[in-house]
């Protein structure tokens, strides 16, 4: 390759890079951007709740997190998936009771776990479109700059909104864990036992402040 050819090749490469930077990337960002914004907003809320964890107390944290979870998670759909094939056997009243208990448990778990701040921060690593037009938002949780875990969010478009439908920490899917446990309980003891277990867990994690 002559110097002139090399120069032309370099110029072409730079132009391609410039095109990607000005056209390609924003187009991609426009696809994943809203999903990323949902995750970022939810993580910001978590950090804010942790920072004010002590003065807020459990009930205060629960009160702040309930609207944040409802806004960012498709809790009813997650609840449905956690029951796998058993969802189809429930009556409308049972489904309603389950989603109600599941929603409370989800928020209570956040309020119990994210109770104090000790230098945690979330960093977005990447985002990509995956099957069914869902978006995978990859993030890292750090404490004082040291990586603690990789936390990936699967965000799905429903009814014109983007909502989190699964969270995977270090390769461990929260949805899969719940599905394995819930279906095991239903198989052994039936749906009423599962509902009672979830309600008891809500009462336990909230130290009796809430009932399932």
């Amino acid at each position, binding site marked *: 390759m002559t110097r002139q050819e090399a120069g032309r090749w370099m110029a072409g490469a730079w132009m391609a890079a410039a095109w990607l930077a000005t056209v390609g990337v924003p187009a991609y960002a426009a696809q994943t951007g809203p999903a990323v914004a949902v995750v970022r907003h939810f993580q910001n809320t978590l950090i804010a709740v942790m920072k004010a964890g002590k003065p807020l107390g459990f009930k205060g944290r629960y009160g702040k997190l309930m609207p944040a979870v409802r806004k960012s998670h498709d809790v009813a759909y997650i609840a449905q998936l956690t029951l796998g094939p058993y969802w189809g056997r429930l009556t409308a009243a049972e489904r309603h009771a389950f989603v109600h208990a599941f929603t409370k448990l989800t928020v209570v778990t956040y309020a119990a776990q994210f109770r104090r701040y000790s230098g945690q921060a979330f960093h977005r690593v990447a985002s990509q479109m995956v099957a069914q037009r869902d978006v995978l938002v990859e993030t890292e949780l750090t404490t004082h700059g040291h990586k603690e875990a990789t936390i990936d969010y699967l965000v799905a478009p429903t009814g*014109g909104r983007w909502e989190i*439908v699964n969270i995977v920490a270090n*390769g461990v899917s929260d949805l899969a864990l719940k599905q394995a*446990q819930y279906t095991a309980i239903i198989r052994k003891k039936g749906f009423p036992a599962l509902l009672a277990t979830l309600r008891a867990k809500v009462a*336990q994690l909230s130290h009796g402040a809430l009932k399932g």
Partner: protein
Amino acid sequence: MAVDARCRVRRAVARVLGLACVLFLTGCATANGPDPLAPMNRRFYAFNSATDRLIMSPVARAYKTVTPKPLRASLTNFFHNVAYPDVIVNDFLQGRLGQGVDDIGRFVVNSTIGLFGLFDVATPLGLKAHVEDAGLTLGRWGVGRGPYLVLPFVGPDTLRNTPSLVMGIFTNVLYYVGAPAVTVPLTVFDVINARANASASLRYVRENAVDKYVFTRDAYLQHRNYLQDGGHLPLKAVEQMMMPPGPAPAPPDPPPLADPAPRPRVVVTIPGRPDVAIRPPVPAG
């Protein structure tokens, strides 16, 4: 340095206990499949939990009380470093030559500049830690996972991973130090330190799991799959999970009312949110 056989056995047992504790702590995920040994596993799980509650948990609490956090961090670095040759050996057995060379560099840097591994100076230099063991090597060679196991004093495991317990002994630097007066107390510290480091994870399981055995099994297996995949998200498995479920297995109780709703997501109202009762999927394209 050669030592007599009894000392070797003692150290080997101690190392197994140490590894057991680490596994017990880190163990948690299912990418599931059947669990043919569930009845036995559940019994050993209960045994391990009781042992932990009665012995390891109080000891770890006392240990955390008397050791400042920086000292615990340095001890963790030290124990991680003396066990690191296991990672290096498995790097090469898996044909990951570049990673193996990096890991040798990491081990040398931390063992020298890092004062016998007390300080992790390699990570800031770009030599990050990897996780490899005999189980992952066998997986890379195409050996099947085998049944899920819970081993007494060891915790969650799989049949394929059991050679790791033995290989971890012979690749640990402490095995070759030779003086039981040094290695036995160090091994005890290793076990206690690992248990103390796992306190938060174990508390999470205790507080949040509705079936601790299933939670631990599924978390462990999912995490092993993740490591097997080189720390990449098993995207296909995650996507598969988001698909509508098939029909329920056996119908011991009431017959199905209706098929589970497919992707059109929400089927019932969220408490306090009647507005989201039905949300159709976004049309493709």
